[in-house]
């Protein structure tokens, strides 16, 4: 695997250059694995947020629900 590919994948997931010392201490596959782990964490968080927003409304008393829905959705 191209060394730059692993580092680029991690930079892309981070939205910034990873620490240079870290890039030098890992091989391309390890950098890619790290990038994948971060990507998975981001997706997992985003999906959890989708569910949470829907679930949250169910816990809001009727009197507040319209206003809260207006803010959340």
């Amino acid at each position: 695997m191209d060394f730059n590919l692993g580092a680029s994948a991690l930079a892309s997931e981070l939205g910034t250059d990873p620490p240079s010392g870290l890039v030098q201490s890992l091989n391309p596959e390890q950098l890619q694995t790290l990038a994948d782990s971060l990507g998975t964490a981001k997706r997992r968080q985003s999906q959890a947020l989708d569910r949470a927003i829907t679930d949250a409304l169910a816990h809001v008393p009727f009197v507040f629900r319209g206003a809260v829905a207006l803010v959340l959705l």
Partner: protein
Amino acid sequence: MSTQLETRAEIVKLARLLGTPADQLGYLERAAPEDLRALREQATDRLFEGDQARLHKLALASRILPATIGATIARWALGALLSARVTGLLVPSKAVDIAAHLPASFLADIAVELDPRRAREVIERMPAWQVGEVAAELQRRNEHVAMGRFVGYLGDEALVASMEQIDDAGLLRIAFVMEGKDRLDHVVSLLPEGRLAGVMHAADRGGLWPEALDLLDHMSGERQGDLAEIATAEGLLPNLTEVAHAEGLWDTILPVIPHMTEASRLSLARLPIVENRDALAAILDTASKHDLWAALLPLVDHLPAGSRDTVASLATDFDHTVLARIVTVVGENDMWSSLLRLVALNANLQQRLVPVVTAMPSAARARAASRARELGVLSQLGPLGPLLS
């Protein structure tokens, strides 16, 4: 802290952030801890920023709702991870109100996920009793790494309440991994009298001397002296120094010597390990590498005769630069009596010092000669005697 252990602590924190078992990140063990910490902060920011708009909406919604309902939503809809992400976006007073309606177990879940940098004001406003309850819960779960991230953000009252809930070994483990160790001396100053002795016994019982030595390394000179007194009084010096030697941590012990009482120095100098040639060689090597001669020389005075002979013999292997540095430090600190008594023991060392003494300024030579006369060792210094006088 050793780099290896620091790296491991960072891997645990990163694993938690990524929702990955720490053992799956074993490939990061070769990375520097500061790089892993920088990566973790970048990843934390990215995870936060990625959903920032929706997290902000949740925070905004909380303003409309009573705290009790906010707490219900946090617990049953958001869960700990998202609650942690939202915490820093809430109005701090509202966050504290919501927390008041949440059980310590759930707050502990949030604490594990929370980025303290983003929730500083909320953490500061939390009542001490509640922080203590969360600390007790985290202690039950052995979440020392998670607790170590918060120490730098807690006020004194909350720290005291927390430390009351954490056992002695737990305190050592947290101190070892905590962020912002420049605050550690102050944190230790909040411990009640007698607690430090318990902490040191916990180190002894639990094989936590490296952690205790790391703690010692971050204390003020005065508190280092206090800890040394406790270790001496509690009979812990032998085990402490054995571990320091085995782990190559003499650089933690030597700076403490100037802060010890004469009685404690004598106890240290008379330990079996200080009669061991390998240990003495390691001590001298450490003093040389870290320029700790001024700290070490007061100990040399107290060494038993056999150990002093060994030190003098080992010193014959020093190169000119090291010997010149020792002589400079001795001159600056007026430690001639310590050095001269040692030099009088070994003819080879006297010979090795000839070029160093020759290069000394005349005033320094006169001072050394005066000390040698006072000690009655001028005639025992071989070729150095005529050079000094």
